[in-house]
Structures are given as C-alpha cells and as structure tokens.
C-alpha cells in the first residue's frame, strides 16, 4: 500500500505539471490542477493508512 501511495503522489504531480505545460490558461487547466492535487491527497491517505500504527486506537 505504501508503494501505491507514492505512485499516486507522483501521478498527481504529473497531472499537475502536464496541465500547467500543455493546457491553455483557462478553466480546463485549473480543473486538471485541482484533480492532480486530489490524486495526491488519495496518495497521502494511502501512505498514512499503510503505517501499521495508524488508527489502531480506534480498534
């Protein structure tokens, strides 16, 4: 799960960079940047969940 988390982080960043470089300065670019950040947040969540101690106190 940790590897998947890091892959999500890199994929999200790639989306952001591609949007900045390739898309015109209009709405689509902003949407893709926000989408890339959302993918990174999923990656962060996966990374945090991959920690064996995360959320143990709830069980």
């Amino acid at each position, binding site marked *: 799960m940790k590897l998947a988390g*890091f892959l999500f*982080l*890199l994929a*999200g*960043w*790639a989306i*952001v960079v591609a949007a*900045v*470089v*390739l898309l015109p*300065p209009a709405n689509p*670019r*902003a949407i893709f*940047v*926000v989408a*890339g*950040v959302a993918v*990174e947040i999923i*990656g*962060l969540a996966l990374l*945090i969940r991959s*920690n*064996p*101690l*995360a*959320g*143990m*106190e709830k*069980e």
Partner: protein
Amino acid sequence: MTPVPGPVFTPEVAVSVILILLVPFAVAGISLINTGLGRSRSAAHTMLASMCIFAVAAGVYLICGFAWQGYIGAPARVIVAAGREWNWLARAPFFLHGLEFDGAPSSLAACLQIFSVGLAALIPLGAGLDRWKLSAACASTALLAGCTYPLFAHWVWGGGWLAQLGVNAAMGHGVVDAGGSGVIQAVGGLTALSIAWILGPRRGKYSLEGMPTALPGHDAILILFGCFLTLLGWLGLNSAGAILFTGASPARILLISINTPLAAGAALLVAVSITRFRFGRPDVSISANGWVGGLVASSASCAFVTPFAAIVIGAIAGALVTYSVEWFELHFGVDDPGGAVSVHAVAGIWGLLAVAVFAHFPAPVVNVAAGALRAASTLDAGQWLAQLVAIATLIGFVLPLTYGLNLALDRFWPQRVVAEGERQGLDLYELGAGAYPEFVTHSEEFTQLR
C-alpha cells in the same frame, strides 16, 4: 581611460548583510527547541547533532548545492515544451567558483542560503529525536543539502519553472515564497515526515493496542528561550528573503518586522487557548510549537500582507499546528517528538496558500525570479493556481524524493540506533557522557557503567 567599477557596497547591501547575519539565531532557536523537547538522556547528543548537521549542510551546499540551485540570471538547463522554455536546474560552478563576494545579489543569496539550508536540515532532527544515529543524521543531511533542497529552491528562488509560472503560464506572479515557508520549512518538514516513518516510533511510545504514551520534553526553559531566538532569526530570514527573492524594497522591512511577531504571537495565543480549553491548562510544548508555526506560516507572505492579515495567518497556523500534532501522534501513528511535521510542513504549506488568500502585490515588486516584472497589483486568480502548483510539487515530488533517498540510505546505513542505545540514551551510547552528569534521573542506567 574609463575607471573599472569597484565592488558595490551600498546601504541597501549593508542592510541585507545585517539581516542575513540574524538568521543563525533561527538555527540556534530550533536547536534549543529540539533539545528541550527531547529527553534529558539525549540532550547533549541533540545539540551536537544540530551543530554537525549545520556543518554538513553548509559544506555540501558549498560543494554542489549552490551549483544546482543557482541564482536569478545564472546559466541554467531548460526544457522546451509547448513553445516555452522551462528552467529546471542551474548550471553554476561547484564550490561557489567564480562568485564575486562584492555585495552583488548573487553573493548575498549565497550567503543567506548557507544559513537557510542549515535551518532546513535541522528540521528533521525534531522528528528523529532520541533514536536517530549521529552519523545517519549527517548522511541524511548531505542528501537534503546536496539534492532535495537545491532542486526545489532553484525552482522557486533561482528563476526555475515555478517562478516562471507567471510569465510562462499567466499564473499571477509565479510562485511567491518570500521567506521560505515552502522552500525551507515545508521541504524540511516533509523530510522530517520521511525520517519519522523510516525510523518508527520511540520504544515505549505506543502500547500494544496502539495508544500513544506521553513522553514529555525535559526542559521547558530551553524550549521557550529557543522560541525567542527564533523570532530574531525569522525577522532576518523574512526580510532578507523578501528583498533578495521577491525584489521587495528595503522599506518593506518595517512591515515585515510588524507582521512576523504578530503572526507568531497570534499563533501562540491560539495554541494556548486551545490547549487551555481542551486540557484545562495551557501546554508549553504545543504552545511553543504554535509560536514557531506562526513564524513559519508568516514567511511566504510577510512582505505583502497587512498586519491584520498577518494575525489571521498566524492564528490559523496556531490552530493547525495544535490539532495536527495530535492527529499525527494519535491517529496517524507518527512519533514526532519535536512536532517538526506539524510546525514546518503543515504550517509551511498553509503559509504558501496564505499568499494567494491575503497578499496584495504593489507593482512591480515580485517575480524578479522569473527575470521579468509583471504589473499586476491586485489579487490574481492565477496566483491561487501558482501557489497550488507549488504545494502539489512539494507533496507529489519532494516527499517521494526525500523519502526514497532516505530509505535508500537506510538500506545501506541503518539510521536508527540499536535498542540498547535507545535504552541508555544517545548521550551515553554515542557520546559516552550525559548532558547532566550530576543529575541522577536515570540511576539504573548510569550505575551499570560503574
């Protein structure tokens, strides 16, 4: 015959030099805070590690860091995409070769960066307290000072692609980070998160059920005195950074000198209030973390916000730090004794975002890093995107890079001290003597050596 112009040492340069020479106070302050937040049996180790880390960071940065970070207008490697040139790495000589120390902006930037990289490298020590080997901390610092930091610093402060976003992609002024909320603090804070993950929690920190145990810092006076020193250092850092990296006029030092303590004070009061409300009494270590979090968040926008906005930025930072310290420890299972991740990464990222929310740029002040000045003087929707791209780069690129580098280092050179060393304390195990030999607070461990 035309006389050859001599070194330029104007009053502005003198002011910049004085401001830069305040920055070591921030380094000293963070060192004291980390030491106070650690355990007494590792206190001397933490202070020595702080000095070693600073020394290694300065040395590695001198060898190759500045060459890759460069400065505005220096030769750089570019990628041409969609008809535009994107600057991604500097091509300056190693060992500061060829740099004239005559008061030119490039020499001032190099001087400031020596201290800045030391400050960034100190941050992970807060997350690795009481279990990070001295040698491993130095090796990890070399990776940060030689690779992670110069790369991101070039992108924002050296005229790199993040600074170019205003010109190349019509995103406001490009990424604005006057005092280093992102470049120094968030880079250091994300490295701290990597270190905390790789090292794992201290022995005895979590029960078998995963409940964290309180392992309080050993010296509140060191922590609070460190907080005062950080204010002095941050005044220099924010002012010098704003002048050198965003083109702010020296007159802005007055505004920065007001905004910086206001943000720190607001963050402190919010942290004191929250802990007083939740636990019945103010918590010293969390309140101190709130203070530093306010300083961290103030850095990016200090020269371009009103004092009232600085208070709001600081107050939000104080609340963020207070709650995120608890979340990281309780819910995310991250043992971060110094609160480095919350204080430097979380508050740093908030500081970057605060530029988009609160900053007003007098034209033509910023974007010198892109080599062109834009005349926009009010809030620009594109500025939001620029700051968001910087945050995305920190989380999506810097975090995987620094984690990967430190994990690779850990494979070859295990970073965590062995169990016996942790039980004895790093002072005895790695240095052979305790910081407070006349105290008998750990009698059973000292008596073993009789």
